[in-house]
């Protein structure tokens, strides 16, 4: 059985916050583990704040579409934005081993998402970015294993 939920939000932090809460509730009602819900929250918050911060070349408000698909023990999150082309898989990754003096303060969000999700894919279609994130309850990344 597959359940699909589609959300359309404006590109603001306030809307990200309330969407995170709604999706959190949905995942909890579907009895997903705390671990998956934790990862899901990281993925949503990081990807959406990244879009709001960097995707747009104008100051207008944009619409972001978020589709949550729950199929058994698998959650698929699709995020669609009309910002400029940006493939998170090709983003420059921070050096998480540098010492305190050299550690960069930003850039960790995409890195965390890529590490915590089971699979992330990217597509550019009709001048839009499609980021697809897969999380499954037989989870490897968040167990602490490399």
């Amino acid at each position: 059985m597959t359940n699909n939920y589609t959300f359309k939000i404006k590109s603001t932090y306030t809307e990200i916050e309330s969407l995170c809460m709604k999706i959190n509730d949905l995942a909890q009602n579907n009895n997903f583990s705390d671990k998956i819900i934790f990862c899901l929250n990281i993925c949503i918050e990081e990807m959406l704040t990244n879009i709001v911060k960097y995707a747009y070349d104008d100051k207008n408000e944009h619409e972001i579409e978020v589709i949550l698909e729950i199929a058994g023990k698998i959650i698929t999150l699709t995020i669609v934005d009309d910002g400029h082309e940006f493939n998170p898989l090709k983003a420059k990754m921070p050096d998480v081993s540098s010492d305190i003096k050299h550690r960069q303060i930003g850039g960790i969000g995409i890195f965390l998402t890529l590490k915590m999700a089971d699979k992330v894919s990217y597509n550019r279609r009709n001048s839009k970015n499609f980021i697809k994130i897969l999380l499954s309850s037989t989870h490897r990344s968040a167990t602490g294993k490399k």
Partner: protein
Amino acid sequence: MKVTQLESTEKTTNILLSGSLDIAGVRDIEMDFSRLVSGEQTVLIDFSGVTFIASLGMRMLLSAAKKLDTEGNKMLLHSVPPLVETALNIAGLATIMPIVKNESDALNLLEDHD
């Protein structure tokens, strides 16, 4: 999200964080937290009540740790819930701010360095 200053010692400022360090959580406490971490004293943070952390929260911790480092002081986290610890480890923050089991381990670690 709440930040509380606990009874502190001669050498350390003790802080309790509780709640979710998400966008709203960081906004709630960022100013108070930064005020408590003056840089002049090593900071011990009780993380037992923290249910979530994403990059905004990590950014807040990292800038505080950097401020402490310039004064020759440290930031230690203790009683960190497993999922939060996993996220901090993935981000490589554990090498910058030691994560220890509990408050007494934190104090022992500081004594060893003296």
